[in-house]
């Protein structure tokens, strides 16, 4: 599945040093569970995003293992401590080998 996979990410643009901020991420992905059948009765094979990682300046914020029970258009809300200005990197790993990434900058005042 690599059709039309678009992420939506909300990270504040600024923060104070050491502040805890809230991050929301959403990505469009069918998350085909492998439980559904097609019109002929055959199982539609599983095809999901199986891992999501958020880093900041190279250090891990959160690393999520996803199973088919995560809903279509996987959504995650979590928090991060921001020690300094830098870049958040978001990476989603697909069963089919595709990797989707996006970044957001934040300035620490």
């Amino acid at each position, binding site marked *: 599945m690599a059709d039309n996979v678009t992420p939506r990410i909300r990270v504040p643009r600024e923060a104070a040093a050491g502040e*805890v*901020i*809230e991050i929301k991420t959403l990505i469009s992905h069918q998350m085909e*569970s492998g*439980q559904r059948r097609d019109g002929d009765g055959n199982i539609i094979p599983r095809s999901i995003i199986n891992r999501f990682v958020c*880093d*900041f300046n190279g*250090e*891990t*914020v*959160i*690393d*999520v*293992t*996803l*199973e*088919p*029970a*995560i*809903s*279509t258009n*996987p*959504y*995650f*809300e*979590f*928090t*991060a*401590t*921001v*020690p300094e200005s830098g870049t958040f990197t978001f990476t989603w790993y697909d069963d089919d080998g595709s990797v989707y990434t996006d970044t957001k900058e934040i300035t620490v005042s």
Partner: protein
Amino acid sequence: MTFNRRQALVMSMGAAAAAVLPLRLSAAIEDNIAAFTGGAEIGEGGITLTAPEIAENGNTVPVSVSAPGATAIMILAAGNPTPAVGIFHFGPLAGAQSASTRIRLAGTQDVIAIAQMPDGSFVQASQEVKVTIGGCGG
């Protein structure tokens, strides 16, 4: 189709019963838990699981987990065909050991959250979520 009052009552009770299925603990759950905990004992307290009492649609059920100080939290859906839902691993820059997501629940069941603490101990919380089977909305 003409229903008399008795038939209507039986049918609606049947519908109510069908929507509150008996809970089935499977071997799969035991395996998932064992893989995560290595067989260690699981305590209670220090972990919060937030899920709706009634989910309007089982396709997208918002849940949150929080366990201050935890290194990881695993979520299981006891009544799903495969109980594993996901595992949150918190890195050094996590602001708090909490996260929210949306999950699929195949029917009314217990949702279980187990947190791994840095000293190697585990704690769990669980909650039953009723999943309604739609009426005309399907």
